[in-house]
């Protein structure tokens, strides 16, 4: 191995550092006593992730392995966001993982989750569809194991089965689509494809299959149907991870690929994305109204959020990219906060996740309620929380490209989304519990959860009001 190869390897520092974390966790898991509480183990993982977050960033663009791997400042920032989000999820998972029936599996949880994160990193940095596909699969197959992790709970198993089956179906179609692309272009290097695209009908089909495969990951309607079931059945921490990290990674990856690989077919994919976006937002919103289970409800909420996220891809501009990454970051903190609250309540009440159980929550747990409220407001796009800014920027990006009608329809949908977010707020603050007493007793959440909530609230409040973050993203996106 010569020097340049070594430096090339080192340029993969995001992935390498993640692999190091993974290996350390794997070894530590082998060393620790399986039935111990594993608190220090969890602390260690979180600390490692905390360090890893800062190792993702890279100031300059690199194309390595003959174009197989392309790392740009922008993707490195997105990786950082994803790492940070993973850290938040890990923090909130502590309580669940420390439970007697899961504690001996926490090593596996971390390893599998980190390997999916690694897959996402590959996906983001890929310069070739093969790499992309491997990343995509790495990001989803171990996920199925994690989803089914509460293995003596029927719902978890069902969720795992549904996830792996639909994931395979979608990946098979995606693969078929890629084969068609290969057959019509002759190469699958991102750098070479644009020159060979003609926009022939077969390529259109390939494009649709590709978008559908990514739409599955992001759960865009009509490829979303697994989402609610899996979110509901999976352990709450995993749901949080699924809803923010894998969705965010898929969205950015899709946007990058569409923008740089399919510039010639821009008309095709913008139209497709526009339709998917509007349909996703609308259908998900309509469905979310009817949900009584919080996790299921959040699933539909996340589907509609995905619809908003792809608006950034729809724009396909620098600003679109930046606002998309921004949206994802904001979405991560808000959604993780919501799931942290849901999971805390679930853990402390023996699995209650129905909205009706939240009635009168404000009286017993005002702080949790407040966090939940802020997070929901942020998701609903209420200022001064970050969600407002992210929505505004992403709408602006789509608007700039002339997608007025799409933006307008999305805006109208924010009313519905606000409605169902307020339903939760209503349950917590306004509604009277059935027998006058809230089913959730006053509780004290675990330190990890509290740290997670504090970080999330800080993010919800600061990401919007401090303009530096977005401006930074915009700057990095320009260097894309």
């Amino acid at each position, binding site marked *: 191995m010569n020097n340049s190869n070594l430096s090339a390897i080192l340029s993969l520092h995001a992935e390498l550092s993640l692999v190091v974390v993974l290996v350390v966790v794997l070894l530590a898991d082998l060393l620790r006593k399986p039935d111990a509480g594993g608190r220090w183990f969890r602390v260690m993982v979180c600390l490692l992730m905390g360090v890893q977050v800062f190792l993702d960033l890279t100031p300059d663009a690199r194309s390595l392995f003959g174009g197989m791997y392309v790392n740009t400042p922008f993707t490195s920032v997105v990786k950082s966001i994803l790492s940070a989000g993973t850290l938040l999820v890990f923090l909130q998972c502590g309580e669940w993982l420390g439970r007697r029936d899961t504690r001996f599996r926490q090593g596996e949880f971390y390893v599998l989750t980190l390997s999916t994160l690694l897959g996402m990193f590959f996906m983001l940095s890929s310069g070739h569809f093969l790499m992309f596909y491997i990343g995509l699969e790495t990001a989803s*197959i171990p996920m199925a194991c994690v989803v089914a992790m509460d293995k003596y709970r029927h719902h978890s198993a069902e969720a795992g089965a549904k996830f792996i089956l639909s994931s395979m179906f979608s990946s098979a179609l995606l693969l078929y689509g890629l084969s068609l692309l290969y057959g019509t272009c002759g190469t699958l290097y991102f750098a070479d494809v644009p020159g060979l695209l003609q926009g022939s009908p077969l390529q259109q089909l390939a494009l649709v299959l590709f978008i559908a495969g990514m739409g599955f990951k992001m759960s865009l309607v009509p490829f979303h149907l697994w989402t609610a079931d899996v979110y509901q059945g999976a352990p709450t921490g995993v749901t949080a991870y699924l809803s923010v990290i894998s969705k965010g990674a898929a969205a950015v990856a899709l946007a990058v690929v569409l923008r740089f690989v399919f510039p010639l077919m821009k008309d095709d994919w913008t139209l497709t994305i526009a339709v998917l976006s509007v349909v996703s937002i609308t259908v998900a919103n309509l469905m979310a109204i009817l949900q009584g289970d919080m996790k299921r409800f959040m699933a539909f909420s996340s589907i509609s959020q995905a619809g908003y996220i792809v608006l950034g891809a729809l724009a396909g501009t620098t600003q679109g990219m930046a606002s998309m990454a921004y949206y994802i970051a904001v979405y991560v903190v808000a959604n993780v906060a919501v799931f942290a609250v849901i999971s805390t309540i679930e853990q402390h009440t023996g699995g209650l996740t129905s909205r009706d159980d939240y009635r009168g929550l404000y009286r017993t747990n005002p702080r949790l309620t407040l966090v939940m409220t802020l997070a929901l407001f942020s998701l609903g796009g209420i200022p001064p929380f970050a969600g407002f800014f992210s929505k505004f920027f992403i709408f602006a990006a789509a608007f700039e490209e002339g997608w007025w009608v799409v933006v307008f329809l999305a805006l109208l949908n924010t009313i519905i989304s606000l409605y169902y977010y307020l339903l939760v707020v209503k349950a917590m603050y306004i509604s009277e519990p059935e027998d006058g007493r809230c089913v959730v007793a006053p509780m004290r959440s675990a330190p990890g959860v509290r740290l997670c909530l504090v970080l999330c609230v800080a993010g919800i409040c600061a990401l919007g009001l401090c303009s530096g973050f977005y401006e930074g993203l915009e700057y990095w996106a320009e260097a894309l």
Partner: protein
Amino acid sequence: MEEITLQQVIFGIVALMMMVCSVLAVTSGKILRAATALLFVLFGTSVFYFILGYTYLGAVQLSVYAGGIVVLYVFSILLTRSDKNMNERIPRGRWFAALATTVAGFVLVAFLLLGHGFADTVIPALEELNPGTVGEALIGTGKYQFVLPFEGVSVLLLACMIGAIMIARKH
């Protein structure tokens, strides 16, 4: 009338077998029979690879799929007693919808494939791909070389292994 080559004959037989077996694999009322049909399809696929000259690929196909996966299927079928309680009847409406979608999809794809006008290229018969080339490409770092995906897949396999063991083992 031109001469029919051996390649054509083999292709014709194998293709026919694969198509029939594909259909059998998804319609057969007995799941073990379906698994067998799958096995035949997988064999057929590897024959294709051999025809194309991708011996290495065909070998992998044979060993991994036919050797590994199908066995896994058979084991799990027996483990879950799927061969005993196979109830494949579905309501007529759903069946019709499934068929319609499938046919529509197939027609669409076939139409597009036929309409694309792929070049009529001739491939040299039974010219094998040198396994050394494959190995080189697999560990090289340059363009058209695939060490990085190789590493990626290894991570994936590791993760899947851990996951599968975690899920499947009893505590």
